């Protein structure tokens, strides 16, 4: 049974790991392969700061909230394990700031210690009159992706540095199931007008005195289009760009100025921070995550694709819940194939 995963970002690698962990023992012939045009540290997941935080509103999508919770609980369970440092996993607290009161988010009981900000805390952030404080998790892609890769390689999963041009390409080689975790490029494999880039740009600085994340919100502009500051284990990420429909992965001087000026206004101490890098990436945005099976007829063969893409700016936040769901879909494929493989009973 050959399974090919397209994409080696957080979604591809975690889906591969879930499937191998759960089915390797049940399916001795299971051969798992990962195909990608980019590997860590050059994936979208590597550019993200790595903060676990869903969007403000789940738009009634309870399934995504459940996947977010599953991910948080999974990571929290690993916090005290010896692997935590290697995974790039640690607790972080911080502030979400608003210019007006907002309802509690879907994730308020998932994170730890969620509360509203006190008036004295709001004094730190002139211009913002309302906000939240909570403790969440950081999962840094630059560490987590290599950790996932090592786990997969230890399990004998093979990696291929190759841009797959079509599902057909893999099926004609004898692959039985394809996991489509191609993120922003899913449209190249199968047109999906609902998948659009949410372009982001970030500045990486050295500011080790910053111990909290600070995320501002402009309810009129939408998520991530307002300055944010996220301290990592080595450097601090400054951001605040979300451009729907913009495919450019070039750093923009105008966006740089916006991020720098607005973050320094938010945290004056940043004025003295040293800039060590800049990056632009495309959030694979979609009204909802596409996580579903698709059976494709190829001649007289039925090929199976499991789609797992469109996680926008919350890939890291939701990855484990989605990987487990993808593994369940894989399980149901196996179930069906077993039934087909079982010879019919004797005719009387």
């Amino acid at each position, binding site marked *: 049974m050959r399974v090919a995963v397209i994409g080696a970002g957080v979604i591809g690698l975690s889906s591969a790991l879930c499937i191998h962990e759960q089915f390797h023992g049940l399916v001795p012939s299971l051969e798992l392969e990962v195909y990608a045009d980019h590997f860590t540290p050059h994936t979208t997941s590597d550019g993200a700061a790595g903060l676990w935080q869903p969007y403000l509103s789940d738009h009634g999508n309870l399934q995504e909230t459940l996947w977010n919770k599953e991910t948080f609980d999974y990571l929290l369970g690993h*916090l005290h394990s010896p692997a935590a440092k290697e995974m790039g996993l*640690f607790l972080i607290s911080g502030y979400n700031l608003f210019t007006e009161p907002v309802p509690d988010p879907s994730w308020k009981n998932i994170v730890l*210690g969620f509360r509203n*900000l006190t008036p004295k805390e709001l004094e730190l952030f002139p211009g913002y009159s309302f906000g939240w404080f909570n*403790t969440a998790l950081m999962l840094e892609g630059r560490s987590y992706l290599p950790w996932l890769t090592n786990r997969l390689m230890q399990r004998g999963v093979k990696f291929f540095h190759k841009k797959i041009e079509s599902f057909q390409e893999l099926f004609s080689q004898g692959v039985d199931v394809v996991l489509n975790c191609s993120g922003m490029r899913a449209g190249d494999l199968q047109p999906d007008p609902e998948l659009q880039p949410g372009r982001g740009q970030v500045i990486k600085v050295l*500011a080790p005195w910053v111990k909290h994340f600070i995320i501002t919100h402009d309810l009129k502009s939408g998520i991530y289009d307002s300055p944010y500051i996220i301290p990592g284990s080595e450097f601090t990420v400054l951001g605040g760009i979300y451009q729907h429909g913009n495919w450019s992965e070039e750093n923009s001087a105008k966006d740089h100025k916006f991020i720098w000026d607005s973050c320094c206004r938010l945290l004056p101490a940043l004025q*003295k921070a040293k800039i060590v890098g800049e990056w632009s990436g495309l959030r694979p945005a979609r009204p909802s995550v596409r996580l579903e099976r698709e059976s494709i007829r190829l001649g007289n063969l039925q090929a199976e694709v499991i789609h797992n893409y469109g996680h926008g700016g919350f890939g890291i936040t939701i990855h484990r819940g989605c990987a487990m769901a993808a593994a369940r879909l894989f399980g149901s494929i196996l179930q069906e194939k077993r039934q087909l493989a079982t010879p019919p009973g004797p005719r009387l």
Partner: protein
Amino acid sequence: MASPKVAVVGAGVIGLSTALCITETCPSCSVTVLSDQFSPNTTSDVAAGMLIPHTYPDTLIHRQKQWFRETFTYLFAISNSAEASEAGIHLVSGWQIFKSTPKEELPFWSDIVLGFRPMSEAELQKFPEHRFGQAFTTLKCDCPPYLLWLEKRLKATGAQMYTRKVADLWELHSEYDIVVNCTGMGAHQLVGDKQLFPVRGQVLKVHAPWVKHFIRDGDGLTYIYPGIDRVTLGGTREKGSWSLSPDPGTTRDIFDRCCSLEPSLQGAQDIEVKVGLRPSRQCVRVQREILSQGGVKLPVVHNYGHGAGGFSVHRGTANEAAHLVGECISALQGSSSRAKL
């Protein structure tokens, strides 16, 4: 008295902040800091500089609260300015945890730090051996940066600083009009204060930049305080011990205790061991005194004995000491004008 000459003895956080307050309240004063040690070799440099007050048994609570409030307000403003990183001041959130519920669930300072509240059950899961906890956000003064920043501010006012071991306050009476004694543990010898005793603290300073929260056991013995570049792991409270040599067994013990609260510290790198003697007293001595010898008078303002709470109250006591210096000046001016009649 046109330009009173004030000598401040001691260049730890107390000496430097007191000297700075004096330049602010008495711009006409000429201020000189004299100390045998400057940063990075003061007791203050060993401390983590966390703003979590120590309770002095014999100082009125409202006075301690006032000192803390003034210090917190002062540092809060710096942390929110462009100077924050140079001054080494930053906000940090975390937890104070207890194995058994403390008698006092609301410490006197709970309304001064930010966001103080009891920890939730979910938060306490991180500490299976602890049954109760408090979550809050406070400030940390990293040393050496904070002391160096105070020195820079002082130099900008024209204050002078000299390395000099003062063996007797009377040495200074011919050069200075007022002496301010901020000698910390040195006051034991310098002014013979037998109520002052060392409480030895050993700490580890490690590289563990993924640790973003403080964790403090309410017993005060085990704590993890993340600074700008290093995390301070502590500690010990050895009353009466004068030893400044690091003890390897203690190092192992501190590391183990901290790892049991924060397992990821197993991966900490570059462990440095430091020792400091907390200049401890039942109450902080912030007090005026007029020394007298052979008809000569020397006004002295004492500001020492802050023990485990130096950083937490430093600005408040510095303000009070500067105020006392003002009183000394008034008294001197009063007596000199009387002398003219």
